[in-house]
């Protein structure tokens, strides 16, 4: 790997560094850097959410537009490019499902959750999701608060189970992409279901 040197002070810096470790100068933007790399993190599903936020906030503070108000246009653009990328990194990596899908895409070259992924046909998964939607529909019609709370608990348990499954799969080098994609998709479905459940409950209050 080529050794990189800061154009301001000549110090060496690691690839994907945002700021020079020696003089703090803003380094050239590199669009090929992963979301993990821009925050100085190793590429792993396991991460400390507090550490992630601290890193992102600190970098955003150093990249604040006010600090570049008097800087040349090229430097202003560079700070904006880094800042946008760091925002994206914080949003994607800070969400356990999006982080998993990002790692899936890094590994298999495609997202398991984007619209471009197209339709899925896994009958077992789809049947289960349809049953859950039917269940929610019946609960909403009956305005059965106890049943709604039970369903919410069940969704939370299922999401937790899927997160563990996804984490285990991502921890090994060759986890098998079909099982992983299926788990990510089911997890995504459950999130949508949870949002639907919340909407349904809110509508009771006003009806």
């Amino acid at each position, binding site marked *: 790997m080529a050794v990189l040197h800061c154009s301001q002070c000549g110090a060496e810096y690691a690839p994907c560094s945002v700021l020079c470790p020696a003089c703090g100068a803003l380094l050239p933007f590199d669009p090929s850097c992963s979301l993990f790399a821009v925050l100085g993190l190793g590429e792993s599903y396991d991460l400390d959410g507090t550490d992630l936020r601290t890193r992102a906030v600190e970098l955003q503070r150093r990249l604040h537009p006010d600090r570049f108000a008097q800087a040349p246009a090229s430097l202003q653009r560079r700070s904006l490019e880094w800042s946008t990328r760091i925002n994206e990194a914080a949003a994607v990596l800070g969400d356990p499902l999006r982080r998993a899908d990002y790692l899936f895409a890094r590994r298999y070259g495609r997202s*398991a*959750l*984007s*619209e471009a*992924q*197209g*339709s*899925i*046909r*896994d*009958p077992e*998964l*789809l*049947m289960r*999701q*349809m049953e859950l*939607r039917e269940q929610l529909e019946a609960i909403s019609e009956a305005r059965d608060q106890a049943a709604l709370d039970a369903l919410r608990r069940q969704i939370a348990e299922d999401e937790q189970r899927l997160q563990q499954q996804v984490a285990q799969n991502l921890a090994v080098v060759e986890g098998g992409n079909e099982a992983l994609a299926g788990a*990510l*998709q089911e997890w*995504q*479905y459950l*999130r*949508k*279901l949870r949002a*639907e459940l919340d909407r349904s409950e809110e509508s009771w209050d006003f009806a």
Partner: protein
Amino acid sequence: MAYSEKVIDHYENPRNVGSFDKGDESVGTGMVGAPACGDVMRLQIRVNEQGIIEDARFKTYGCGSAIASSSLVTEWVKGKTLDEAMTIKNSQIAEELELPPVKIHCSVLAEDAIKAAVQDYLQKHGGAAENHSVAAEAASH
């Protein structure tokens, strides 16, 4: 985003909602989903001995465009042969319902659902979709 009048009509008065017995030999069931939007779509066809789709049912959990797309397709497939049903394109659905670009994927889902239903029916009758076209052609000669 505003829905077209046609989408609203299908959404408010969905055609052919419901289900057929999945185990029935004359029924083909297509189940498809789009995880990105949380949509689930089930589309069923009832096929007579001449290979004509006599009736169709659907059930869709999703946005208005997904519901309208599947409702429209159940209307379209009635009276069609299986081969004709396989030629329904999502672009036709999108055009009829005046779907905006961000909702095109809903029409893709409906196209996939009808294809899945036809394939399920053909599988029950001992042939894959590709074989069917060949068989139908051979039979017509």
